[in-house]
């Protein structure tokens, strides 16, 4: 099998057996990026020289026998994770010149494990969007059909994996930003429980919702990546003081008797029939594997999107105040006075969607409106979480659609904020509740992949990965890739 078609688990085994070196693997992916990424615009920065020198070091480590499972494996990082010495733009003009002198904890952890940074992936500006069209570096294109969006905001990571430009990548998910692009690009992505992965050095969008997570071809690979990403971080007060289990340990466990909650009949009315069929087949497959399907209902979830669009912009409006042209990032030319320095640096540095969300958030927090918006939304958030928790008392996992349909056309939703926001209908609930959730490929609608979402209890990523792995063991949707298809 060609190097670029292999999963992380396969590449790791190959490196261990000395079938190939890390230099060869890294070179292979860099070559693919260099020759193909002009089609997808999945990368903002390619880290060629440093990647190759890291590969040389990884090979020495492998030779000395001190390697870990990811040593020598090249991966890509969403350009929201600060990487020491490598530009970290967050998809914004504001940070086009920003080279952080420090690493995010996530990148630090990957570097320590010996993984190699191929580059930094494209994203919606400051992670605000669901299509990777709001990037300062131009839109990213879906490898399955380059007229379509790859989803967002972690669209670059998803597209890069789908196009086999990297075997795995990091993403972040505030309202669906890992799961929705995973669904649109036919890959596997996991948003861990809030607090599982450190947010230190991950540029904040909405602090109480943001969570970094793994994206790869398979659930098995996601488990490998999550093992390295997660853990309590003394630099992040909201990182959970939980012992990190081995997420790979329970993958091959059978899922007989596992109770899966479905909201199928409720969701069905919003889904097109193609998606419904795929979902039904996927659920049947889970039944065949021994799972029991239990109909549940989550009526409060209909409030999730408006609740999210209060909380996320409010927190963002404050988180983005630090971008003021004083200490780093974009600064306007010849400011007349302090006010001019602030307003012009921010207006020229931020794109339209970011500005809209800052304004909405500022409004929601402003005098006289706090109780009716932010305060209220946080109360509804408790109702939503309580509803999920009570369902999850009776079932182990909740399954349903990840998105409302397959990837949409580039430019088709640019003028309609609300319809873009409604893309998040199925995903934002898990962010508001803090629960782990993942998306796995379950088929195609109009030749574009679609995913199924699995939501689990707090800190039960292992169970989600187990279900996903068992499903992938029995199906091959995750093994279908656009390039392979084109080549065939």
């Amino acid at each position, binding site marked *: 099998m060609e190097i670029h078609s292999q999963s992380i688990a396969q590449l790791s085994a190959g490196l261990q057996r000395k079938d190939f070196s890390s230099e060869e693997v890294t070179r292979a992916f860099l070559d693919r990026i260099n020759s193909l990424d002009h089609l997808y615009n999945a990368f903002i920065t390619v880290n060629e020289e440093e990647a190759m020198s890291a590969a040389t070091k990884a090979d020495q480590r492998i030779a000395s026998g001190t390697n870990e499972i990811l040593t020598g494996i090249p991966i890509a990082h969403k350009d929201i994770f600060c990487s020491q010495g490598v530009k970290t733009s967050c998809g914004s003009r504001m940070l086009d010149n920003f080279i952080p002198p420090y690493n995010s904890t996530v990148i630090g952890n990957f570097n320590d494990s010996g993984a190699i940074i191929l580059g930094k992936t494209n994203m919606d500006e400051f992670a605000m969007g669901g299509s990777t069209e709001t990037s300062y570096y131009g839109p990213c294109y879906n490898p399955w059909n380059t007229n379509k969006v790859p989803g967002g905001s972690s669209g670059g990571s998803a597209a890069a994996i789908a196009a086999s430009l990297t075997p795995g990548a990091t993403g972040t998910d505030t309202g669906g930003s890992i799961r929705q692009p995973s669904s649109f690009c036919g890959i596997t992505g996991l948003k861990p429980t809030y607090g599982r992965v450190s947010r230190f050095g*991950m540029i*904040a969008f909405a602090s109480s919702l943001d969570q970094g997570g793994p994206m790869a071809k398979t659930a098995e690979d996601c488990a490998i990546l999550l093992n390295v990403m997660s853990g309590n971080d003394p630099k992040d007060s*909201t990182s959970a003081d939980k012992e990190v289990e081995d997420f790979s340990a329970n993958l091959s466990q059978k899922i007989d008797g596992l109770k899966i909650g479905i909201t199928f009949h409720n969701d069905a009315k919003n889904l097109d029939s193609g998606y419904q069929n795929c979902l039904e087949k996927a659920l049947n497959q889970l039944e065949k594997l021994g799972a029991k399907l239990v109909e549940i209902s989550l009526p409060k979830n209909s409030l999730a999107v408006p609740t999210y669009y209060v909380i996320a912009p409010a927190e963002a409006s404050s988180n983005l105040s630090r971008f003021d042209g004083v200490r780093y990032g974009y600064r306007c030319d010849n400011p007349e006075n302090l006010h001019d320095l*602030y307003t012009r640096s921010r207006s020229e540095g931020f794109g339209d969607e970011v500005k809209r969300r800052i304004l909405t958030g500022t409004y929601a*927090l402003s005098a006289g409106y706090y109780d009716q918006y932010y305060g209220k939304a946080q109360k509804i958030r408790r109702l939503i979480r309580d509803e999920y928790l009570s369902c999850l008392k009776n079932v182990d996992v909740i399954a349903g659609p990840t998105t409302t349909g397959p990837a949409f056309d580039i430019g088709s939703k640019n003028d309609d904020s609300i319809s873009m926001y409604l893309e998040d209908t199925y995903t934002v609930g898990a962010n508001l509740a803090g629960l782990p959730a993942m998306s796995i490929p379950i088929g195609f609608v109009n030749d574009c992949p679609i995913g199924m979402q699995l939501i689990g209890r707090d800190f039960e990523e292992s169970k989600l990965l187990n279900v996903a792995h068992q499903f992938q063991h029995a199906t091959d949707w995750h093994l279908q890739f656009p390039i392979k298809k084109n080549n065939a």
Partner: protein
Amino acid sequence: MGLEVHLQLATISKIFSGSSTTFGGTPNSQACSVDLAMPGTLPVFNELALKFAVMFGLGIDAEINKISVFDRKNYFYPDLPKGYQISQLHHPIIGRGTFELFLGDKTIYQIGITRAHLEEDAGKSVHSHFDKESGIDLNRAGVPLLEIVTDPDFRSTEQVISYLKALHILVTYLGISDGNMAEGSMRCDVNISLREQGTDSFGTRTEIKNINSFRFIERAISFETNRQIDILEDGGEIIQETRLYDSELDETRSMRSKEIANDYRYFPEPDLLPIHITDDYISKIRDSMPELPLAKRSRFLETYDITEYDADVLTSSREIADYYEEVVTTCMNPKLAANWIQTELLAKLNKSEQSISESPVSAKKLGLLLSKIVDETISGKIAKQVFSVIWSTGEDPLLLIEKRNLKQMDDSNEIESIVQKVIDQNADQVKQYLSTDEQKRKKLLGYFVGQVMKSSNGKANPKAVNQILSDKLSEKS
């Protein structure tokens, strides 16, 4: 008047980061990625800042809130790198408490403490270096502050000053702040509103910011009060605003920058979780609390039988009180120790502008010296000479007394021979003594004692000298 005091807590690292809080470093050398609000950085709360806040709460017998929450106060200012200050709005760590003031006329006046909350300090704008620009130094950004807010209970400048002095003593006793006003460790904002005589309600208030010495507080209050009186007498209206005290011009002026309608958009800081304080935590801190100034003052009055004035001076700082108690333990004479510390030690320290912790004479040495007065080894006069020597040389007082042979002469034969010599050498005075009245005799006796002391180099035991002289002279009459 009501006061808001910003007290810098004496932690070595910042409230939300591991940078040093040392005053006066090279600009921006003590600002790490968190203090600079670099993208993606997050705050982590300093345990000692929490402990200090709780200690303060216990010190004024205030409510300690079991759950307290940090909030973001959003506004743009170059010395505020995140564009928000982490503070506490709705759930401050310390709730209601009271502060008792002893005023000069011995009355006790109670000041209500509304609340005290934790927050981070901002950086500093430097205006002097450049022409049309300002420089920003973020070394101070993130230094822990406890903002202590009082009820509008102050009716005079004297009360304000005595509150601030008592607060200073309390926080230095607790060791939670150095309370240094000049370095900005204790900063004070005063809210002033006037009340027409005979009415209950107060007028519109103004807030004066940035006062950093007792003298300036007095002047700022007086300036602002007069300004308000003038306006009201001219039939004008007071505008509710923030004013800055300018010590060079000795005036308050409106802060234009703060005038743009402030809307701080407070909301709970999502990067931090609620702080839970357990009863167990509070009782552990309570058990380790040092004795507070007022308790110490009462104890001193009771155990040591000293005057109220002495007790005030000796408890005016924890260092002085500790010094005093060590001297007392060594010399076993509380009154003597109180006198010596005030008249000799503090006077000398004052002259050399040193604090008691820098005293060249340790409490142990002073105690030993005084113990030699108590057991009549030396006289008070000799002791003063010894004190002078050990002040400059740091010698051990006991060795010095031994070495210089300063011990009091107790041998009556020796004293007798000196007395005899003095009587022989002063025949005229003796004659005069024998022929005069009681009044003049006393005076002459003093003269003879002086002469004896002089010939004995001050070492003769004055009691013995008196006795022997009287005996000898009465023999003659």
